[in-house]
């Protein structure tokens, strides 16, 4: 019973990490960089849902849709204003472009967080969960409905995105653009649209995670920071570039974390994740499900 309970919590935590990691992987696939502003999509979308639902009194489901649309738009706008001018700068080599884009995302992180602090920096707010009943009981197992929702959404999103990248032509175009922008232009891909789509999608993923997590972790401008690190760790563990890999990476982290905490030491809970990641990467430098790059001379 305790085992099952721990497992359920670990899985839902892990799904959350995976969900955050998904958005990171999307941007990584497009730009080859970690998006430090991803935690801000998480935060901003959750606040958007808060404004719509709590402040404006719009029904929950509609608020969520509005917030997701807002998150996607934020991703698109942010890419257009702060990333595109750098990534289309012809004078840069690939390496300097990447480093510059990373810094730009750091700037975005600070800016968006700062903006959120003006109205909401003073205290912590609460977004209601999706269901009115907090927990349901299955046999002797008590599971929070919100956590159940997280699991369902994470699995669904992972499956959809995997299919999206492997099957749909937009997914393929995204992969192509990320691997060689010039090559993509040469076969008629509007790379600008692809970047917008990628960032929009990434922000939506982050935003969904934010809305789902907000009832559990409360709303405040810094809520995305820790999640960013967890998502980043999940993505590394699973192997950047593989959608289902991130999901498994997140799951693994969530489960290991909670069992270590319960049976070994809670005081070391904060550093289990780094230790696992270092150990795994030592043996599989490309993550559990990543593939080695096909670079050769």
């Amino acid at each position, binding site marked *: 019973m305790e085992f099952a309970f721990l497992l359920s919590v670990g899985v839902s935590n892990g799904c959350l990490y995976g969900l955050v990691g998904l958005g990171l992987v999307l941007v990584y696939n497009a730009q080859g960089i970690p998006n430090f502003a991803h935690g801000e999509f998480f935060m901003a979308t959750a606040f958007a849902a808060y404004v719509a639902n709590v402040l404006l009194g719009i029904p929950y489901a509609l608020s969520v849709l509005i917030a997701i649309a807002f998150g996607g738009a934020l991703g698109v706008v942010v890419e257009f204003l702060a990333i595109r001018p750098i990534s289309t700068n012809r004078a840069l080599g690939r390496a300097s472009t990447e480093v510059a884009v990373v810094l730009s995302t750091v700037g975005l992180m600070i800016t968006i967080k700062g903006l959120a602090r003006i109205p909401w920096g003073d205290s912590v707010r609460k977004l209601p969960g999706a269901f009115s009943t907090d927990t349901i009981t299955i046999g002797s197992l008590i599971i929070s409905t919100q956590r159940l929702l997280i699991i369902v959404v994470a699995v669904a999103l992972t499956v959809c995105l995997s299919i999206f990248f492997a099957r749909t032509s937009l997914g*393929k175009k995204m992969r*192509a653009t990320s691997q060689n922008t*010039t*090559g993509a*232009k040469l*076969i*008629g891909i509007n*790379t600008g649209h692809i970047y917008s789509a990628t960032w929009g999608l990434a922000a939506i993923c982050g935003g969904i995670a934010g809305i789902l997590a907000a009832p559990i972790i409360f709303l405040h401008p810094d809520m995305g920071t820790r999640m960013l690190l967890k998502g980043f760790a999940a993505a590394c563990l699973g192997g950047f570039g593989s959608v289902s890999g991130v999901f498994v990476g997140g799951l693994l982290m969530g489960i290991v974390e909670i069992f270590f905490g319960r049976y070994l030491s809670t005081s070391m809970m904060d550093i289990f994740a780094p230790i696992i990641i270092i150990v795994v990467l030592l043996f599989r430098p490309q993550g559990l499900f990543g593939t080695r*790059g*096909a670079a050769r001379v």
Partner: protein
Amino acid sequence: MLDVANLEAGYGPHLVLKDLSMQVPRGEIIALLGGNGAGKTTTLSAIMGLIPTRKGTVTFDNAAIHSKPAHRVFSHGVALVPQWRELFSEMSVYEHLELGAIQRGNRQSLGKRIDDVLDHLPELRAHLERRAGTLSGGQQQMVAIGRAIASQPKLLMLDEPSMGLAPLIVNELGRTIKRLNETGTSVLLVEQNMHLALSVASYVYIIRNGTIVKHGPTAQFHDERELFQSYIG
């Protein structure tokens, strides 16, 4: 069909093409020849819209394309096999052909068009599922060519397609170009391999220091000595 008039283009402060004019008539194979650094690649990039043009016009099928981005130029029916190949290293050969075909023409004919490409480049059949990044130099070159012709362009621009290809394949390439031409594709060919260039092209432009210094029907250039002279001199 393609008309380049008084083109100027370059990189940053560095002007490469100066007052360059040339034409590719419909259904012809035109060769653009010149020494290293003469500006051939720059010309193709400028036509394709990969680098901005500063002056002059490029018209294709009566549409001005000189200020359009590459993907728009592509949608007019122009395809380029770039000198540096620009493949997607983590994607399979098949995906390259598919992506090449996907942006033009209808979905239904996709499989058939890819099959056509493979008929032109049979060597690729054995490697369809391999990632492009692991292929040998020559194999990559074939993928780049295949990707471009998969879109069934009206104008195909090839930047040194024979580079890195084995003689057997080069011969095959010559035949492929001719065959494509017969099915209605115009070709603008940049080559260092004189044999290949002169055996397929009907008209030759010679570029030096970013301008056309000489042009005429191929027959005029068949005396190779003279050709070399005009390069070096």
